[in-house]
């Protein structure tokens, strides 16, 4: 927890920050420290001065004898310059270079892309059935990409609720991307447009985490957190727990939303991967509305707690 404080104490404790700390995701894009490593305990080694390491090289000294920072973290001031061996030469200039623009471009300079339909499912509840989708697409390089997210549900041929986001995803750490863009809500009630800022990535122990804060017109704010985990029962039978939470900074009666925690869902989906790219599944999900949002729902005669049975397919291409 020291890391979390260190990282965030200088920033406003926004809803977003608090949620990130709650999720435990905050420190992981900073670094994964491994305390001890057996070396601090080794007094003989600790006492021996390290050759070629100045006393000022604190991060490195810590690295040697205290904790091992094998992932992430800031580069020490004396970290090696990766261009130090070039003597000013580049791929485009210097002796023996081929004439004209650089011809050799490998896949690190190519764009890739993918469309994932994480959930495309039929939802069965006591009050009726619906079709839900949750998709994410990206196109671009390893470190910068265009990200599209779309989630929503359709009942009786009508779009009930939809969230569509267009984001610029930018890699900031080994397992984390920041995402910046816009979100459009449509469906029942007036449409809403938001600016979006979030992070998406992989937390320790392989939790897929997506946390995004939103700012809309009239001072509206929102926060959406979701997480997924893939539990391999066998190489192809995979249990996917999933949770999602939505919070809002102020009430939006027209869309039936109160301030604070509005809704949450937790589900379990069991899929069989006929291939990595095609996996049908069945599952169950518990969903709830809370606070004022629940009040609005009750006023409309809706349930505030719901068990959903789902059957669908996960696919990507």
């Amino acid at each position, binding site marked *: 927890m020291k890391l979390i404080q260190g990282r965030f104490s200088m920033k406003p404790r926004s809803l977003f920050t608090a949620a990130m700390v709650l999720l435990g995701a905050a420190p992981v894009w900073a670094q*994964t420290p*491994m*305390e*001890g*490593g*057996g*070396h*601090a*305990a*080794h007094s*003989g*080694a600790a006492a*021996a001065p*390290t*050759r070629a*390491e100045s006393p000022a090289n604190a991060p490195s000294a810590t690295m*040697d004898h205290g904790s*091992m920072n*094998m*992932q*992430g*973290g*800031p*580069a020490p001031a004396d*970290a*090696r*310059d*990766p261009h130090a061996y*070039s003597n000013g*030469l580049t*791929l485009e200039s*210097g*002796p*023996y*270079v*081929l004439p004209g623009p*650089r*011809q050799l471009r*490998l*896949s*690190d*300079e190519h764009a*890739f892309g*993918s469309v*994932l339909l994480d959930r495309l499912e039929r939802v069965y509840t006591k009050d009726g059935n619906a079709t839900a989708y949750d998709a994410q697409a990206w196109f671009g390089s*390893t470190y910068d990409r265009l990200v599209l997210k779309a989630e929503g549900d359709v009942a009786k041929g009508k779009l009930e609720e939809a969230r569509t986001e267009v984001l610029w995803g930018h*890699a900031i*750490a*080994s*397992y984390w991307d920041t995402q910046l863009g816009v979100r459009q809500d449509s469906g029942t009630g007036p449409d809403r447009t938001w600016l979006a800022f979030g992070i998406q990535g992989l937390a*320790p*122990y*392989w939790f897929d985490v997506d946390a995004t804060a939103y700012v809309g017109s009239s001072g509206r704010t929102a926060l959406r957190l979701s997480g997924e985990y893939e539990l*391999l*029962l*066998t*190489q*192809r039978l995979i249990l996917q727990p999933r949770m999602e939470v939505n919070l809002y900074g102020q009430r939006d009666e027209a869309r039936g939303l109160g301030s604070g925690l509005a809704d949450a869902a937790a589900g379990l989906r069991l899929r069989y991967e006929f291939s*990595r790219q095609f996996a049908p599944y069945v599952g169950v999900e518990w969903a709830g509305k809370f606070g004022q949002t629940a009040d609005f729902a009750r006023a409309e005669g809706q349930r505030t707690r719901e068990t959903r049975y789902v059957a669908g397919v996960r696919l*990507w291409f």
Partner: protein
Amino acid sequence: MPPLRPFHSPLPLVPARRRFVRGLVAGGVMIGLSPWLRAAAQGLSDTRTGAAPVLSGTNIDLVVGESPVNFTGKPRMATTINGSIPAPTLKLREGDTVTIRVTNRLREATSIHWHGIILPYQMDGVPGISFPGIPPGQTFTYQFRLEQTGTYWYHSHSGMQEQTGMYGALIVEPRDADPIRADRDYVVHLSDWTDEDPMRVLAKLKVQSDYYNYHQPTAIDFFRDVADMGLSRALDKRAMWNQMRMNPTDLADLSGATLTYLMNGVTPAGNWTGLFRPGERVRLRFINGAANTFYDVRIPGLKMTVVQSDGQNVEPVTVDEFRFGPGETYDVIVTPQEDAYTIFAQSMDRTGFARGTLAVREGLSAAVPALDPVEWLTMADMMGAMDHGAMGHGGSAMGAMDHAAMGHDMPGMKHDMSGMNHGAMAMGHGQHAMHGMAGGALAKPSATVRHARTEYGPSTDMRVDMPRTNLDDPGIGLRNNGRRVLTLADLKTIGGPLDPRGAEREIELHLTGNMERYTWSLDGLEFGKSTPVHLKYGERVRVILHNDTMMTHPMHLHGMWSEVETPDGQFLVRRHTIPVQPAQRVSFLVTADALGRWAWHCHLMLHMDMGMFREVVVS
């Protein structure tokens, strides 16, 4: 320590998959070709596989084109040289100047790189560095003088053409008598084939980097471990991997799920066969021409005497097994007495094998061994030596250290070392850097780890602070397997180094990557973001390759020899391709005697293509 159980039956149980992995017995190429493919193949004869045709002399014509193949039951088009897989074996003579005309009949540019051959940089065949490549319909004339002898190979350096069939053996025969005597001489060219478009394979890995890994830890494995070792040890065994988001079964990016493993262009079911008479000395020239596969090679019932490595004769060393990666070659001598022996080359990730037979006549076969169990990578593969000896404490009072205690008792670590295999590992072995500091500052390789500042960002997923420097580790899956397995430390090039000078300076390069993002780099910088490594013409330089990943990378420097040394700075072996194991630090000396621009890269094709690649300028 009990060995880890296999997680997966070695061979898939589904018949269709079995056929896929083991391949078709024989071609039957045109049968079952879809109409459009048949049209495309019209006028093309089937790709010839098996022992490659031999071309010799000083004038050679090679034609690059497409030709149909069928390794798995699915007809595909391969990229071939003179219509065969492998391409013709070039038998050239030391001292000759050869003229090789390469004609491109593809619809895209092509190239041929002469792997391991010392030649002028314009003849090296790397498009964009040595020359512009060979456009469709054109002929490029390579001309160079052969200054060396031994077993080498050649392959396309354009796109994914090597994966789709463009590779062949290149043998330079000594002008005088070959010191290696043999009654028979066979090229055993190992490769791998995928029915998929290799670019599509890469695109899939960009989306899901464990796409082809069906040996992943599962809940079933976990419960089995709980039953075997108790809950807390089962949890501990996984804790660090899960915390770091690393996969202990990440041994290969591609597996038998897409690859068919080939020996001389023949599937395991096809059973390439080399003939002998009992008692003959048979020379086998093993070439790993795979795009993605490390092979563990053995011939049950036969000892192999390794006599050459990367084309350079070595003091004979007799082993049961050796591992080699893409780009490496080993020549071995065997003296078979029985009727038939299996040449068994299992992939490092244990998802399949290439197989052939040495026999006294055609049609014989010997037992084919089962694949070895899958092993998890160990903590040593992830974290290195965990031993201060490798950390630059050279000359200090390290003699008092109790290595055994270091290795086995890790206070504060809280992680069970279940996966560790202390017997064959760094602990207590070869931490020579600790003993004294005789000679000049550069007499032996620096042990101080210096990460590049670009290794602290999203392009890497780990850094090793305490690398292993010992070279006597056969690697994951081969440790303590009861067989005598070759290691780098066993190899001694006959005649010593080409250049007696010591290093004038050091270059440290780190092998880096981020498996989750599927990006590969050096010092955390992919090729497109990199600048060349500049060597001053004539200088003798030490290169230290430090592996900050969990995979073994066969690093191939074009144009100049890499003379591998011990952690003490003693010359070991002259190579063109050096496998660097996870968390390992290997050093070698290079004499910059070849003016021009050269490629330097990991020979795992997809790693190279994702940017684990540097340009070297000698001027």
